[in-house]
């Protein structure tokens, strides 16, 4: 077993209404930041996962996304997996 650092980024599903992203885009524009577009506000879930290999870790993290961490009806998700430094030695 190796310990992996998992990061799950969850964002509103592209193409659906994202009023929060729109509000942040408006606020950035009011501060004078130019050229900003496609602003989305989501959430970051981080955890450590012990698994037999990176593929297995990713597979399990994606199953967690489908069942709980993201709602596929309303959200997109992206899983990032990295072996923890010093782990598995």
């Amino acid at each position: 077993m190796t310990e992996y650092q998992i990061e799950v980024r969850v964002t509103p599903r592209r193409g659906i209404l994202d009023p929060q992203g729109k509000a942040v885009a408006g606020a950035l524009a009011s501060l004078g930041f130019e050229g900003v577009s496609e602003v989305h506000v989501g959430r970051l879930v981080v955890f450590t996962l012990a698994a037999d290999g990176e593929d297995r870790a990713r597979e399990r993290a994606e199953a967690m996304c489908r069942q709980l961490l993201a709602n596929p009806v309303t959200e997109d998700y992206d899983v990032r997996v990295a072996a923890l430094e010093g782990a598995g030695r």
Partner: protein
Amino acid sequence: MRLGVVTFPGSNCDYDCYKAIREGLDAEAVFLWHKDHDLQGVDAVFLPGGFSYGDYLRAGAIASLSPIMREVRAFAEAGGPVAGICNGFQILCEAGLLPGGLIRNRTLKFASRTVHLRVENAGTLFTTSYDPGQLLRIPIAHGEGCYIAEPEVLEELERSGRVVFRYVDATGEPTPEANPNGSLNNVAGIVSESGNVLGMMPHPERAMAGLLGSEDGMGFFRSLADHLVRA
């Protein structure tokens, strides 16, 4: 007749529901604890409004995995009536017992006011006391009530009469201005394909007496009671 109201940590309309059953219908009401696996022999289940588990992760996400939800799911799948109001609607969507999902209000504001609803289907077991197209005045109180679904899902809901309530203006028109949260097609409430599971964002249990500003929620509870008497 015995009706159950589930209490999750963070539910805050459970007692309103309980009172609507006891005083509005003069029926027996029991509280069902989220950690139990016992529906206490109830004839129908209410998932009340509130902020179960502090809306952590997503509104209704954690509650949809509560111990009692295993029994609620089996009860619903066996044809038992289940009504989710506000947070209860969010929980039913998260549990996959109703299609689609509820996201942040378009305005980004918590909307707490009385709205007009039009009864789109007076043939469901929750709406037979109403006339088709009847206008109701029912309060809403939510921050995440914007209903969305895949285009084909929404089309199927519309085609099969499963959109039960719609936000309309005082003249009965589903205008964008009358839509408090940005819901697609002004959807305020839907039923499952089998018709026994209903979710709605407005609160009929808060519209049970003139003293509360409206009695229009009474028909909702009355319809369900009539159904249970007939069954």
